[in-house]
């Protein structure tokens, strides 16, 4: 049996010394620092941790630090540390024997918080009679008992164990948690994130923890918090609780965006507590490496200094502009950028909320991930009202969570980052950016081709002698932009529910079923409406049927572009002489109608379609015959829903369209038909 003996007075106990380790004082350290060091040593010392039984022998009135008084009862503080420190594993279950000159009742009257003295597995005895303990300890040492119950002593009235008295078993420690979990979670979350990322990724070549975390760990209150929420050092078992392969796959997916030789995704991270080590923790998460001291160009961090001093809406817009100048692929932001000043501020009025509002106003397409320590339902609710794409909770010390929650939380961050940097959200960002450019060009002197285009009017009946009507030009621009933005909104909502999994359990992108198909098809129909609008379909209808009133629908002219009586078959693909737009519209026709033979639509199909739409909006279609390869959707012998190559990989494909496609989306977003470039 191992005995750890805490006493500065060095009374002679006459107990076997070979298994006794004496601790007399902390020297210049504080009690917490001293114990922190001891606990670390113990957890590395196999002689101690593997002991079959153990005893803490503690002088309650011991003075272990320089300026302590005997009535400070530092021995009891040590006992509290032992009981509260999870690091110590089975050592927490050792028997503790604490001795004092004062009666237990007097101590508890003065310090009710020391109720730990009355808990199980603690025996309280009075000095100097307690020196008789040598007999009991000797007996235990000789292996007469497996566990140090000290029953002999307990049975004696003078030294009766207090465990049968009517005290509550629960013992509170003197540690006063902060009024808000915010301060703790800001470094604790970073600590946990680094720990878990290392656990998942096995990144051995990095520093233990970011400097900010190390610095926070040295603070007394935080150290106590660390003790309270301490975790076993061997974490490998934890990961078995969830799918290890899934987490590693998510991690690989994220790191692919930052591998050497690729153009890394640009990230802006806004957090007032950056100095707590969050920048380093997130950089490690993204790349698996330590953040270089002079930073990297693609990982821009700001503490939102503008927000620290100013508080008007113009200033939030200025901060948003400053962030957007970096052209980020992803924005990470905290919710409370003013620290404790915002502890009680309603979520919608917090600095982060106002920044998100400003960002959404300026750049609705850029994905935003909110990183916050708040675990409140109303924060979650408000965050999505403000328009964030995803929400990730920094792990807090006060969270009542299952042990596996920590690693699951890290896996969740990986998953969110993987999606937000992935093709869906980057496509969303780019098509919204392109929509804004179209609008600017429309209002400036350099409008897109479809404003300048003079669409041929419907061909009159063959038998008619009347002259052909004048060409139609200038579609309804505001309507087109409104439709494009609504496509972005609808697509964003689809991604939120299916890809990021904020929808219910049955809304999962991985399950290619009728549900996904049901949500995607309306989007395709809306894409068709954009083409109808640009092709001035409403004007065609009026010309075909002049008696048609505004808002009234004509069945004769509904359907495929250019479809009108008598000429449908001949002119359907020719009258606009816009074979690419027509190909996209063919997809719309499939999506809009019921056909049991049509397979369900996949997310990659909608990506291809949107990419094709924006390539088409960017480049004037050549006026030539419909290329044979572009009969997408019309053949039963191939997949009905087109892939990118279905649009762009024909032998007679227009080179400038391929060029526009590659410039817009690049290989990072979609499979690029590289052999044409």
């Amino acid at each position, binding site marked *: 049996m191992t005995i750890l003996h805490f006493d500065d007075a060095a009374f002679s106990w006459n107990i076997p010394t070979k298994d006794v380790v004496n601790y007399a004082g902390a020297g210049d350290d504080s009690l917490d620092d001293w114990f922190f060091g001891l606990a670390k040593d113990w957890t590395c010392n196999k002689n101690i941790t593997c002991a079959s039984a153990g005893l803490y022998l503690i002088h309650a009135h011991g003075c272990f630090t320089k300026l302590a008084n*005997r009535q400070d009862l530092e021995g009891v503080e040590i006992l509290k540390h032992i009981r509260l420190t999870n690091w110590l594993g089975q050592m927490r279950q050792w028997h503790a024997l604490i001795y004092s*000159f*004062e009666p237990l009742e007097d101590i508890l009257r003065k310090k009710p918080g020391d109720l730990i003295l009355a808990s199980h597995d603690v025996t309280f005895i009075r*000095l*100097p*009679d307690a020196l008789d303990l040598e007999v009991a300890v000797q007996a235990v040492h000789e292996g007469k008992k497996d566990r140090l119950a000290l029953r002999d002593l307990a049975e004696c009235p003078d030294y009766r164990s207090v465990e049968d008295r009517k005290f509550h078993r629960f013992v509170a420690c003197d540690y*006063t948690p902060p*009024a808000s979990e915010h301060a703790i979670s800001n470094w604790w979350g970073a600590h946990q994130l680094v720990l878990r990322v290392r656990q998942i990724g096995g990144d051995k070549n990095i520093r233990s923890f970011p400097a900010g975390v190390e610095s926070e760990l040295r603070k*007394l*209150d935080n150290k106590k918090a660390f003790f309270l929420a301490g975790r076993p050092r061997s974490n490998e078992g934890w990961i078995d609780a969830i799918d290890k392969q899934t987490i590693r796959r998510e991690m690989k997916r994220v790191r692919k965006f930052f591998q050497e030789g690729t153009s890394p995704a640009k990230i802006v991270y806004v957090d007032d507590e950056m100095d707590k080590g969050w920048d380093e923790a997130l950089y490690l998460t993204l790349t698996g490496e330590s953040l270089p001291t002079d930073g990297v160009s693609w990982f821009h961090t700001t503490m939102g200094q503008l927000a620290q001093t100013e508080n008007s809406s113009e200033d939030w817009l200025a901060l948003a502009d400053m962030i957007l100048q970096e052209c980020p692929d992803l924005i990470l932001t905290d919710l409370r950028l003013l620290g404790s000043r915002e502890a009680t501020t309603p979520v919608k009025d917090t600095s982060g909320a106002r920044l998100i509002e400003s960002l959404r106003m300026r750049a609705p397409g850029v994905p935003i991930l909110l990183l916050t320590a708040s675990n409140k339902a109303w924060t979650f609710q408000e965050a999505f009202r403000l328009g964030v794409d995803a929400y990730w909770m920094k792990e807090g010390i006060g969270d009542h969570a299952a042990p596996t929650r920590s690693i699951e939380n890290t896996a969740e961050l990986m998953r969110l980052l993987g999606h937000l940097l992935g093709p869906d959200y980057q496509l969303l960002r780019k098509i919204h950016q392109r929509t804004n450019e179209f609008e600017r060009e429309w209002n400036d002197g350099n409008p897109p081709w479809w404003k300048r285009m003079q669409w041929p009017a419907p061909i009159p009946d063959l038998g008619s002698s009347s002259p052909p009507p004048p060409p139609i030009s200038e579609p309804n621009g505001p309507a087109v932009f409104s439709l494009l933005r609504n496509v972005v909104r609808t697509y964003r909502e689809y991604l939120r529910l299916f890809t990021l999994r904020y929808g219910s359990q049955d809304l999962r992108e991985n399950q290619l079923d009728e549900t996904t198909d049901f949500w995607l098809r309306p989007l395709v129909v809306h894409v068709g409406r954009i083409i109808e609008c640009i092709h001035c379909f409403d004007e065609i209808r009026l010309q075909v049927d002049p008696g048609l009133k505004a808002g009234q629908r004509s069945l004769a002219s509904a359907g495929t572009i250019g479809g009108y009586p008598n000429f449908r078959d001949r002119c359907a693909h020719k009258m606009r002489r816009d074979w690419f737009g027509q190909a996209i519209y063919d997809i719309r026709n499939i999506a809009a109608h019921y056909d049991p033979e049509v397979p369900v639509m996949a997310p990659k199909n909608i990506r291809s379609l949107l990419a094709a739409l924006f390539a088409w909006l960017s480049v004037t279609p050549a006026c030539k015959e419909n290329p044979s390869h572009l009969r997408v959707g019309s053949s039963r012998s191939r997949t009905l829903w087109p892939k990118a190559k279905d649009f762009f990989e024909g032998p007679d494909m227009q080179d400038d369209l391929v060029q526009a496609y590659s410039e817009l989306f690049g290989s990072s977003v979609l499979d690029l038909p590289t052999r044409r470039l």
Partner: protein
Amino acid sequence: MLVGIIDWREMRRDKMHGWLSDQSVTVKSASTRRTFGPKQAIDLLLLHVGESQNDEGDDLQAIVNEFSGESWIVAYSGTVRAIKEFDKINAEGFVVFPHPVSADSFDEDFKRVVAKVLRDLPSRRLLPATSLKETVTGFDATLERKLEVLVSVLKRQLPSVEKLQSTNVVVPTEMIDLTNPRGSSEKLRKYFFGS
């Protein structure tokens, strides 16, 4: 961390100033409020209270009102009468050290109490208002001496006479027999704490 001292007794003030400087805190000391200069963001103010300080021209109640709420104020005095008088003042973050402090030195007990207050200062915003009071007034000098005596006896040492005299602990010398420390401490314990 900025600690202020207002105490007209120069020797005690200097000793306190020197000791506090060794504790890695910034110290500003003066004999009176007037010479202390403009009010700053003082974290802890050690304020000597008593008639003699009044005689130097300080309005102690005004000083307490001025610093209360923004700083922790630990008042001390050399006389029990002043301690009792100022203990009646009810101001936020104000507390009087309950034992007389020597006029010429920085007593060991007072030093320990100040050290504890300094330890709590960084987390001051998180601590309840009662915490300061408990830290400063919870110290029982008599109990401390009794415990020291018992520890000394068990270690076969005689307790320091000066220490015993300074706290007026009556220790019947016939109870101390260093050849039998266990027996002596048993008797003393019963004498001090009862059975």
